[in-house]
């Protein structure tokens, strides 16, 4: 296990332990979910696993190091002693597993192929057949631009976009959101593992786990007004998503702090990290803090000061949604 520590990581860990997030340090404010008594141990765990040497001496992510990073994250999350056991805690043989990646930003800021390959390897070791794994996003050409090879049919890991099989015809609706769901979700995934990236968003503030589900419906363009709020939260309430969602692994190998969602290399940084959690709200909150810290480091205003705080996170945590927690007192950020 890598034991390298950076100053920024130490500060982040310290801030997390004291509960003094960037929010309280005069940064962005956020409405917390309604205060509730904190039961002992009732915390959402967000594992942040880092490897400053993830790219070795080059610019490409090293598969071996990525696989090791993934294992470290999963062990820290699951408490198991063996990576395969960590995955066996999550999936069962016979299940079909969808890996919803994020490839909108192109190769510069998409879910890494190496990460996905490592996940596919562990899933198979946990008893999932290759042909029962589907790597997917909205558009096949976006997958290809991000470096994935398309594959439909056969005994291999599947990889294709919704454009290849389409959307359901029946409307799926919750609250303010209505749309047609990708048939990949409804017909090819019994289990959903969410693989977003970490970047800011010019409307929503940030786009991480919860907003990655915009790639599941046919009309995400309709749900960008008002900072995507409450749409992001309402979308994640759809039973078809909730029933399948098991885990989020946020690929923060490359992250962006400004100019998103399109890739802006000048505003990206090599965070060389994975954020892993079963609580997507806690993960989004944690990822948001990382972005704010980088923005502060670069002399940029907070997202709140720019008029685009990610209000959808608080909505996702509120009494009407309860998709997770955004209360720092209830989030345990574990560095792995």
């Amino acid at each position, binding site marked *: 296990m890598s034991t390298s520590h950076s100053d920024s990581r130490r500060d982040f860990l310290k801030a997390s332990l004291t509960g003094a997030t960037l929010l309280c340090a005069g940064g962005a404010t956020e409405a917390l979910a309604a205060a509730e008594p904190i039961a002992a141990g009732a915390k959402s765990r967000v594992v942040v696993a880092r490897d400053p040497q993830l790219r070795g001496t080059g610019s490409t992510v090293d598969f071996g190091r990525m696989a090791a990073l993934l294992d470290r994250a999963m062990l820290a999350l699951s408490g198991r002693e063996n990576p395969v056991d960590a995955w066996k805690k999550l999936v069962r043989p016979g299940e079909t597993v969808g890996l919803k990646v994020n490839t909108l930003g192109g190769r510069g800021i998409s879910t890494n192929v190496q990460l996905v390959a490592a996940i596919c390897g562990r899933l198979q070791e946990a008893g999932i057949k290759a042909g029962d794994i589907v790597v997917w996003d909205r558009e096949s050409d976006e997958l290809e631009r991000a470096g994935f090879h398309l594959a439909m049919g056969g005994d291999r890991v599947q990889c294709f976009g919704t*454009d290849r099989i389409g959307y359901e015809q029946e409307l799926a609706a919750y609250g303010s959101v209505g749309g047609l769901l990708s048939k990949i979700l409804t017909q090819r995934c019994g289990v959903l593992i969410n693989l977003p990236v970490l970047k800011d968003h010019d409307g929503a503030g940030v786009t991480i786990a919860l907003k990655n589900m915009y790639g599941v419906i046919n009309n995400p363009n309709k749900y960008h007004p008002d900072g995507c709020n409450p749409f992001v939260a309402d979308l994640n309430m759809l039973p078809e998503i909730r029933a399948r969602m098991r885990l989020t692994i946020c690929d923060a190998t490359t992250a962006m702090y400004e100019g998103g969602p399109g890739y802006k290399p000048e505003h990206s940084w090599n965070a060389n990290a994975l954020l892993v959690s079963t609580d997507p709200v806690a993960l989004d909150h944690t990822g948001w803090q990382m972005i704010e810290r980088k923005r502060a480091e670069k002399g940029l205003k907070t997202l709140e000061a720019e008029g685009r705080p990610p209000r959808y996170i608080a909505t996702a945590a509120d009494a009407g949604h309860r998709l997770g927690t955004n209360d720092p007192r209830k989030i345990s950020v574990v560095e792995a």
Partner: protein
Amino acid sequence: MFCHLDAQKVAKNPLDRRFFLKCALASGAALGIGSAAAPASGMPSGAASGSEDDSHYVVEARFYQKLANRKIKCKLCPRECTVGDKERGYCGVRENRGGAYYTLVHSRAAAAHVDPIEKKPLFHYLPSTTAFSLGTAGCNVNCKFCQNWDISQSRPEQVPAQYAPPQRVAELATEYHCPTIAYTYSEPVIFAEYLMDAADAGHAAGIRSIVVSNGYIQDEPLKAAYGKMDAVKIDLKSFSESYYHNVVSGQLKPVLETLVTLRKMGKWTEIVYLVLPTLNDSDAEFHGLTKWIKTNLGTDVPLHFTQYHPEYLLKNLPITPVSTLERAKAIADAEGLHYVYIGNVPGHPAQNTYCPKCHKMLVERVGFTASKVLIRKSKCPFCQEPIPGVWHV
């Protein structure tokens, strides 16, 4: 009802008579007889082809402004979407490619039918004629009650379509003896370029153009695009900004401005107000609406209070009671509006046109068919009162 297309068989050939006839027969509608069927949900099954070449539908958009960093600001509707490279506006049918903005739906007909003009509804414009009606995917609002959500709330690549260039549209309107082309079904604002070009082709062939719209459009494109229209029907969803925000995802004020501008342009305009029980059916709202119309547009603008049938995201609401529609009409009549109709209630006497002076029936309608039209030379034949509208081709 929509023409059911097998997406795999969608050809790149222009919309032709054989295809159109097949659609009409498949939908059970005989050409030449008014189709009473409203566009229904339940789009054709099958995925849109991800590998289809869409380049013939892509035309540089009008009404946008280039910004730094390859961004653009759309100036078509009041949303004024700022769109980054490779992204689309709210409507889903206009896309930034390398800092230039493109419509993706020029000549991309997702629905095409011959409809009676009364179905638009336009009651004072060429009654008993048919309109060659077409629409594309997309919309610049998201009404929770949308009857055509399956195309309006979809991206163009998700909706089977036929290549129907403007010239072909004009030819088909002529072939089917339609004196008008109607831009409808979804929201014509978002296919403004196609609408404008088709209107020009139609006018060159002696075919008029009418538009069925939410009126949520900026002033310049309104004058440029709807300036080419011969008649306009505006869906005024409510008289409340909060309703527009919460239920429509739009704004009321720009729509009211559109109505005033259309009046100044001298465009024949009719208004539809879809009444949703408990949401926009208060007396206060009806009073506010009708007072505003009288003050700003005059008493001769036809106003249709239309019955809602549950759909899309508001299936929990009931069908609008007829008594609610009659209450709305009574308020509008009392305000002094001359032509107030009740829509979507076949057989209701308020579907007919009556002389505001002598109160005799001038146009009798059965469903979407004007079975009797007694108006002569735009006047009541009984008392010679002028009856506004365009009554003859």
